[in-house]
């Protein structure tokens, strides 16, 4: 991986951290608000089904997680296990794609 890509990955991780900070706050506030009188699956789905706003919000949340987590894991694995190179990069790329796939699938599931 060339130096420019490494720097852009670092930049993407910082940018996604900013998005995640906002998303986590909105998510936690929503949870606290939503469970005032108990919570049911029907109540959650009633709020999310057909809501383009919640669908968009959680799609952004999932995208930020899928960018942020693999880049951080790449550093953790490199420093902990002295594992570097294409094998590591492909592994964390696969993890990012898996997070995106599962995340978007969940968002789709509560939207439809």
């Amino acid at each position, binding site marked *: 991986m060339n*130096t*420019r890509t*490494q*720097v*852009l990955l*670092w*930049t993407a991780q910082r940018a996604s951290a900013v998005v995640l900070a906002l998303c986590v706050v909105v998510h936690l506030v929503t949870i606290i608000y939503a469970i005032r009188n108990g919570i049911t699956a029907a109540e959650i789905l009633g709020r999310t089904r057909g809501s383009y706003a919640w669908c968009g919000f959680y799609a952004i949340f999932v995208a930020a997680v899928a960018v942020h987590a693999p880049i951080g894991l790449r*550093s953790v694995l490199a*420093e*902990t296990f002295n594992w570097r190179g294409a094998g590591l990069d492909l592994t964390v790329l696969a993890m990012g794609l898996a997070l995106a796939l599962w995340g978007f699938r969940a968002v789709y599931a509560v939207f439809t």
Partner: protein
Amino acid sequence: MSTLRVSVWRGQESGGYQEFEVPRLASQTVLDVVTFIQRELDPTLAYRYACRVGMCGSCAMTVNGRARWTCRTHVDNVAQGGQLEIAPLRNLPVVRDLVTDMTSFFDKWTGARGQFQGGATRKDDFARVAPGSPARQLADAGIECIGCGVCYSSCDVVAWNPAYLGPAALNRAWTLVNDVRDTGNRARLAAVAGDAGCHACHTHMSCSERCPKQLAPTASIAGLKRATALAALKGEI
């Protein structure tokens, strides 16, 4: 006369601590203790020093588990229960006893393009740099580094990532990035970026905490992160 119990590392990477008893004196520094041991108790002890006044950066050692410049470290401030444990700096190969091989440390200064690269000739007038200009103030904030290696020895990222350039080399690069006379910044920013450069820093701030000159390499590294990210986004590195 009271005495200090001093454990001193002997050997190379493998070795062990040897115990000495050293007379306790007023205003005694750790370097005084090591010098006493070598001159009076065991002349085979290897250690390194030169100026004795905090200018040359050659006497740094690990004292009671923490990297320090020994010539300006008073025993009063570090001896715990009348005991001292003195070892070579971490993150550097041990030549013998308290002497480390600083080659990789200074090679990384070269790797970070830590040499001034001027563009003026002898026919040009002197550069006029306002001392109060923002760039010069940023350069001045990091310029007093004496190259002692305390920051490098204290850095966890150096231990985890041997290719990492380290706080001192990156701090030096940042002073040059802010030197308006320097013409080598494009190559310098490329040299200090990425997994082995400033982006490897986790901002633990051990370097800033332990720098005996009270410099803040962490702030310099943060500046390099911003400058290199901007350069990468512009396609300049």
